[in-house]
């Protein structure tokens, strides 16, 4: 076990809590920076996709994992970011401005959606956001002059000035850079008042209110921030898939995003990364698996969503804290090695909460 001697409150505030963390995150950073030397274009593309999922996941995690508001409609924000970015690029706007506008617009739409959603929590909110996603999908297929309707629209190649960002190595670095920036922003948010206000709302609205937290404002803010991150991911995704059509942003994508934060581990940014790796790499894994399966089994239609669903159910039953939660348990097992007690992480029910005031 590691015991840290603390001599200043800054040690609890800073992002890297001790030398070991600094070393390992540094090593991870170097590995990611050097990986284009080793990996082929295909794997770089897959990793870029994982990064894009992770950016969207940060958004959904802030909303679902930290503020406690479940959204089944985040594909809509992904779509708004993607289409806005593609449309503005087609109008000749420069790449950085366009991506910023796409982020701000989805953030704004998110905040507006947040307002009626203030009165709802839990399953009702999930259904309301689901309805919103369906509305957006309809708008995408019928607003032909902007979105190209069912024909879809091509996305221009990304470039800043005359410098092209299109080849897989540059795009990989672009995604990595933006993901790092987003993680930095989210971590900062979570260690300050606004982030704490969000977690307060998740755990007890009534006492959050008594602590002076403005529920409506904070929830709207959470929706706005969440939609902003997801919109940003959407505009990167637009380049990744190259051609936008309404069926790129279906309900299945929303569910995958939610699956990502749940499987990764609700309430942690590590969970977002694990979840993104899971969502991003599982289809490839399944494709590999499919080659080895007997044809009768491999050809079953809907195999992939079926397996996704199965994994979600299994995670909810056996490891509600997701991959990150499991990792923490494994780590504490080795840290305390001969002394590990089996019941350390046993879940307890508590019956102490005041009945909610409606």
């Amino acid at each position, binding site marked *: 076990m590691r015991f840290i001697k603390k001599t200043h409150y800054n040690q609890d505030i800073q992002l890297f809590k001790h030398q070991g963390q600094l070393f390992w995150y540094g090593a991870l950073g170097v590995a990611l920076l050097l990986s284009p030397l080793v990996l082929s274009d295909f794997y770089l593309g897959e990793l870029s996709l994982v990064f894009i999922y992770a950016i969207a996941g940060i958004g959904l995690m802030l909303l679902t994992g930290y503020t406690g508001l479940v959204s089944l409609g985040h594909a809509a924000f992904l779509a708004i970011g993607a289409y806005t970015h593609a449309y503005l690029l087609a109008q000749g706007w420069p790449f950085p401005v366009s991506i910023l506008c796409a982020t701000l617009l989805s953030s704004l739409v998110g905040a507006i959606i947040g307002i009626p959603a203030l009165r709802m929590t839990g399953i009702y909110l999930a259904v309301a956001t689901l309805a919103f996603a369906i509305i957006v999908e309809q708008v995408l297929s019928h607003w032909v002059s902007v979105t190209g309707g069912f024909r879809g629209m091509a996305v221009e190649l990304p470039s800043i000035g005359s410098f092209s960002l299109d080849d897989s190595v540059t795009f990989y670095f672009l995604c990595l850079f933006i993901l790092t920036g987003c993680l930095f922003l989210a971590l900062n948010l979570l260690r300050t*008042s606004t982030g704490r*206000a969000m977690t*307060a709302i998740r755990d007890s609205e009534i006492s959050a209110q*008594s602590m002076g*937290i403005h529920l409506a404002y904070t929830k709207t803010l959470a929706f706005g921030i969440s939609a902003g991150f997801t919109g940003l991911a959407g505009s990167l995704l637009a380049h990744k898939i190259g051609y936008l059509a309404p069926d790129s942003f279906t309900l299945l994508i929303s569910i995958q995003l939610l699956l990502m934060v749940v499987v990764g581990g609700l309430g942690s940014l590590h969970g977002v990364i694990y979840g993104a790796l899971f969502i991003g790499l599982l289809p490839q894994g399944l494709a590999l698996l499919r080659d080895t399966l007997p044809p009768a089994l491999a050809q079953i239609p809907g195999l992939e969503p079926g397996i996704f669903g199965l994994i979600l159910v299994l995670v909810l039953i056996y490891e509600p804290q997701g991959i990150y939660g499991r990792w923490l348990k494994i780590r504490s097992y080795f840290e305390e090695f001969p002394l590990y007690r089996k019941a350390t992480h046993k879940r307890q029910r508590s019956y102490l909460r005041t009945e909610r005031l409606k």
Partner: protein
Amino acid sequence: MSLLAANNLSLSFGGVHAVEDVSFSVNKGEVFSIIGPNGAGKTTLFNLISRIYDASTGSIRFNEQDISQVPTHRIAELGIARTFQNTELFEQETVLRNLLIGQHVHRRTNLLQEFLFLPSVRQQELRFRKDVEDVIDLLDLQHYRHQVIANLPYGVRKMVEVARALCLKPRLLLLDEPSSGLNPEETEDLSFQIEDINEELGTTIIMVEHDMNLVSRTSTRVMALADGKLIAVGSPVEIQQHPEVLKAYLGE
């Protein structure tokens, strides 16, 4: 002089008169206890003061200001903090973060500064932390600083909730049954801590409490309620001998 004054306060839920025409005032620096049998309207009164409920009629003045129409989240900024009967902590967070949430009303930074974690935000965080540590020292919570609430025993949770309320630096502290679920030893500690809070921090305290021992040791004045109506206000000794109070508890 009076810090909080309630005038003809009433609240009905349909035909049930939870609080009926209650008027009282609490002086600055007092420990004011509210007692009464179950269903007397004590907690409802707390919910009225902290603006979780709207009064049907009547008004509440805090510090010479009418707070009957103030939105709920503004109450904390005015300097009223409360605890809950069955504890309402942020379960998945550590004690430290719970207490830092108590500092929310003192923040002076905006969202953009927080996203970038500018030096002003860091300064504020350090200031918050120092204030939180002062409260931790006052209530002896050092051991639990980095523990998650869900893993703590009930008695500690109760104290953490009081600590969180104190982090607001309130002028008025509302304690809803602070001793319920505590063992005699913890209750004893609590009575000293209530005195400390009252004397060292100069916080006025209103407390709903059933433990008459605790009430008579700490309170300046006691108010007795029954069936939503006020029956008596006076010193702890007066109240314990008041015939109407005895009748409310013991029957005819």
